[in-house]
């Protein structure tokens, strides 16, 4: 029996009474005092459940591959765990983002510079809700009944709303009026019937040939918060947000097709008409995705690690990637092991890794207990494809599926944390095989630069961030980001400042911070202030000065050595010192961060100084018998956010000419080869 008791007191009561290894601790909201940035506090958890389970779905869906259509019927049991009452229900109809090219999704995508040629009629997608009935409402518990509201037809009250941008052509959010108000702790049960056209894959959902990946495919209830409904339109650069619940889903597909889905399989049965119905159950999740194709090859393995619960890994692989099965499974194990050890255990008994079909566009996406990896037919060892994608998407099980922040508003909370964590795992497991790679001939033929190892701060993130460093304040709601810059801010910048923070407070402390944040906020919806509060509390430092710069501002960090001089020591210098060396360290941008400076001298000795980095520049002088040969600011690369590392060091005798000659000597061969090709065309 699930029982909702509103208020913090009730939550604390539940916390006190809940027992067993699968219970989770309820904590109060942020102590930061900013209600706009803190998560909700009133949900309660029934005994044996991991989450509040207030949005529960029973869905029966049939796939018609010939028409690329889904015919679904779903029952939603929803409980109001907010402090607010509501007289409406709001639903996401994500597939309507591709109903027409005037949708908010397409308008923003065009704004970002992406070109969307009008798709064929057959490639569009949409959802049509054909029936919606109120089965019960106003109960304190789903087990109860309320005859007053049983089986009321609500379809006529369904209307499309545009809470974000007022775009009348957007139909991704629907509102249904209820005949009576649903108060805190009360429940409502509705039945929906709907038909959806599956689009040719867009935003990681749809079909390609006979491959189907179905995400955001069903009418999904929004999240009611204390301040009202949080049910955003589908934007070009944002993802999702939903409450936790239990999904009992039956999927009917052509017989012989393999099905993979969130949760675990309860069974399957053959139906008339050459179809098979598969039933899956996913508990304590906030989304449900599934895939089907006749081509999958299945591999299974068991993840086991000391101190962590075992996990059944199921890999659905494209036949052409059979030789990469071990790489996918090893990467999944790496993520489960390191995230589990560092932050907290993966609590579900199953995980499904989906290797998407080529050109399906469904790769690299996360859903609870199921994620899509991404590899190529030619994926040489030495570059971390598919490992990087697999670790990242598996990592989202922790930062997204378990700690369920609002991706519409605070995408960096999961994407940034996960990009940071992914880089850490890759560095831990694949340090010797993580090299730069390029691809040629239409992107099909890879080439690994084995003398170009990639470090944690390499990759595309620093470059991407550098270009968009001032484009938006990260504290802006993610859906309001300039569409082309969302990736740079949510992924790149956040990962870089988290890396900086790790370097600053030290890994043991930072790991403890993240583990505490994970423990407190798993199966809940944290806000940025909740994260900051945990960081301050667990690290024992007030890091607000840092968060103000990287989160609430667009400060850019760039420290460098401006000057390096050695001159005869003036009178009054120590007798054994005949030379005075001066090193000028400069802050080239507006971001302030304490930095170390290491100065090396001709006799092999060195000196280390610390600078709070506040002034525009600072000069350090050294009286020695020998001259200075080099100086470097931030030699340990603590400040991963530094946008220009080339100016961080300076030599008394510059060697740029030698290095440049060697690089130009390599490049000239490329140019000569190109010139020779040109000569063939006359």
């Amino acid at each position, binding site marked *: 029996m699930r029982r909702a008791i509103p208020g913090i007191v009730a939550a604390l009561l539940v916390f006190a009474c809940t027992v067993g290894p699968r219970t989770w601790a309820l904590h109060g909201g942020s102590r930061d005092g900013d209600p706009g940035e803190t998560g909700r506090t009133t949900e309660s958890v029934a005994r044996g459940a991991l989450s509040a389970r207030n949005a529960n779905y029973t869905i029966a869906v049939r796939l018609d591959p010939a028409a690329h259509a889904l015919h679904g019927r779903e029952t939603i049991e929803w409980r109001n765990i907010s402090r607010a009452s509501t007289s409406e229900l709001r639903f996401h109809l994500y597939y309507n983002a591709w109903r027409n090219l005037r949708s908010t999704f397409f308008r923003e995508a065009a704004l970002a510079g992406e070109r969307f040629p009008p798709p064929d009629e057959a490639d569009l997608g949409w959802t049509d809700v054909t029936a919606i009935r109120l089965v019960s409402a106003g109960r304190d518990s789903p087990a109860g009944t309320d005859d007053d509201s049983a089986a009321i037809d609500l379809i006529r009250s369904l209307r499309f709303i545009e809470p974000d941008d007022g775009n009348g052509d957007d139909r991704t959010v629907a509102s249904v009026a209820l005949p009576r108000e649903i108060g805190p702790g009360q429940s409502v049960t509705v039945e929906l019937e709907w038909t959806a056209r599956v689009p040719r894959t867009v935003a990681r959902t749809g079909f*390609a*040939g006979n491959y189907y990946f179905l995400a955001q495919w069903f009418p999904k209830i929004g999240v009611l918060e204390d301040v009202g409904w949080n049910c955003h339109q589908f934007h070009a650069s944002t993802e999702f947000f939903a409450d936790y619940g239990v999904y009992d889903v039956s999927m009917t597909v052509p017989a012989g097709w393999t099905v993979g889905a969130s949760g675990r399989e309860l069974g399957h049965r053959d139906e008339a008409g050459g179809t098979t119905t598969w039933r899956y159950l996913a508990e304590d999740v906030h989304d449900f995705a599934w895939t089907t194709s006749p081509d999958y090859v299945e591999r299974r393995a068991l993840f086991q690690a000391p101190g962590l619960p075992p996990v059944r890994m199921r890999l659905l692989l*494209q036949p*052409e990637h059979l030789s990469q099965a071990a790489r996918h499974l090893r990467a999944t194990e790496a993520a489960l092991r390191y995230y589990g050890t560092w932050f907290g255990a993966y609590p579900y008994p199953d995980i499904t890794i989906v290797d998407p*079909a*080529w*050109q*399906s566009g469904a790769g690299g996406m996360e859903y609870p207990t199921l994620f899509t990896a991404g590899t190529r*037919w030619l994926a040489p060892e030495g570059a971390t494809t598919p490992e990087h994608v697999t670790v990242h998407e598996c990592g989202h099980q922790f930062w997204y599926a378990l700690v369920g922040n609002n991706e519409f508003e605070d995408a960096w909370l999961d994407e940034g944390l996960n990009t940071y964590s992914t880089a850490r795992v890759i560095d831990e497991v694949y340090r010797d095989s993580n090299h*730069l790679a*390029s691809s*040629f*001939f*239409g992107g*099909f033929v890879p*080439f690994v*630069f084995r*003398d170009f190892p*990639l*470090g944690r*701060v*390499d990759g*595309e993130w*620093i*470059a991407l961030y*550098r270009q968009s460093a001032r484009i938006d304040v990260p504290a802006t709601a993610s859906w309001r980001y300039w569409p082309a810059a969302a990736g740079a801010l949510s992924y790149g910048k956040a990962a870089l400042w988290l890396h900086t923070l790790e370097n600053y407070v030290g890994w043991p402390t930072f790991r403890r911070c993240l583990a505490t944040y994970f423990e407190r906020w798993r199966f809940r919806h944290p806000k940025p202030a909740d994260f900051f509060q945990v960081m301050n509390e667990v690290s024992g430092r007030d890091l607000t000065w840092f968060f103000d710069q990287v989160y609430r501002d667009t400060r850019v960090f760039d420290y460098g050595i401006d000057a*390096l001089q050695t001159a005869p020591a003036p009178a009054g210098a120590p007798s054994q010192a005949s030379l005075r060396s001066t090193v000028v360290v400069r802050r080239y941008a507006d971001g302030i961060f304490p930095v170390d400076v290491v100065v090396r001298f001709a006799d092999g000795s060195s000196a280390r100084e610390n600078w709070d980095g506040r002034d525009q520049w600072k000069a350090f002088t050294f009286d020695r018998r020998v001259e200075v040969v*080099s100086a470097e600011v931030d030699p340990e690369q603590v400040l991963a956010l530094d*946008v220009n*590392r*080339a100016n961080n*060091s300076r*030599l008394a005798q*510059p*060697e*740029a*000419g*030698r*290095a440049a*000659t*060697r*690089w*130009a000597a*390599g*490049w*000239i*061969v*490329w*140019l*000569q*080869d*190109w*010139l*020779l*090709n*040109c*000569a*063939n*065309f*006359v």
Partner: protein
Amino acid sequence: MIRAFKRGIGLVNGAPAVLAGVFLVTLLAALPLALTLRQMIADSIGASGLAQPSYAWWQLFSVQAAGVGRAFSPSTLGFAAVLDNVSSILDNRPHVLPVALAGGAYALAWIFFTGGILDRYARSRRTRAAGFFGACGIHFFRLLRLGILAALVYSALFAWVHPLLFGAWQQLTLDYTVEWKAFALRATFYGLFGLVLCACNLVFDYAKVRIVVEDRRSVAAAIAAAAAFARRRPAVAGLYLLDGCCYLLVVALYALVAPGARASLWAVLLLGQAYVLARLWVKLLFYGSEVAFFQGALAHAGYTAAPPPSWPESPAAEAIIRS
């Protein structure tokens, strides 16, 4: 065919000055841009201790770079450079303006030297500098007209045929869910497009040979004659293929020894320039073997009407005199 191939090797090896000359020209043509890039890299590194630039530095450089600097990417170093160039042709990928202009200037230089080179190989004897450059001058404007025509044909192929072909590939593979099948189809299309390029190249090559060997003035007639010559003799394609295999052999050898991004300056210089030299040798082999094949098949004394001899006579006239 084999005889022409062997003879072509003999002709190229018998004229090392030609090889040395075109190598020098290739080096000189590339040097200004390379020196410009060197300065840009030096400026970017400045006094910093980045003796081994990282990928992060490279990304910073590419953001700041303008002009030729934008052509400096990891793909331009070591063996990746060769892949990058072939790939850029087959994928119809444009280059930055300075590099494209250098390509045009270099092609113009080749048009100039082609007359002298073919003349040298056709005579199969030393022609001295005066004779070589005299032949370059005599044939320059004819070969320039041919070059312009060839450039127009290739431009049309890249502007219309390539998009048509690979647009069709895009459509055909829309529902492909298996990558290797899509790649196989793309490779087939590369092959088709490459075949068209090679066919044009072969005809233009023999047109050059006929212009020089037969002292032809009409470019259109030379092209028609070259096409007819190639059409009637399948061995022409075989010889072209054999020469092409030499190119592939050179590329394969370079793949084995190509210096990496962090190799020493001397390794980069020696191995890189050895590759360029080998490529030039193969390019000259195409010319040498095609001249040998043409002469062996057609350019006999009775075929070409001897014009009144005036120095430098055409190689055909010289052959008449010799006979």
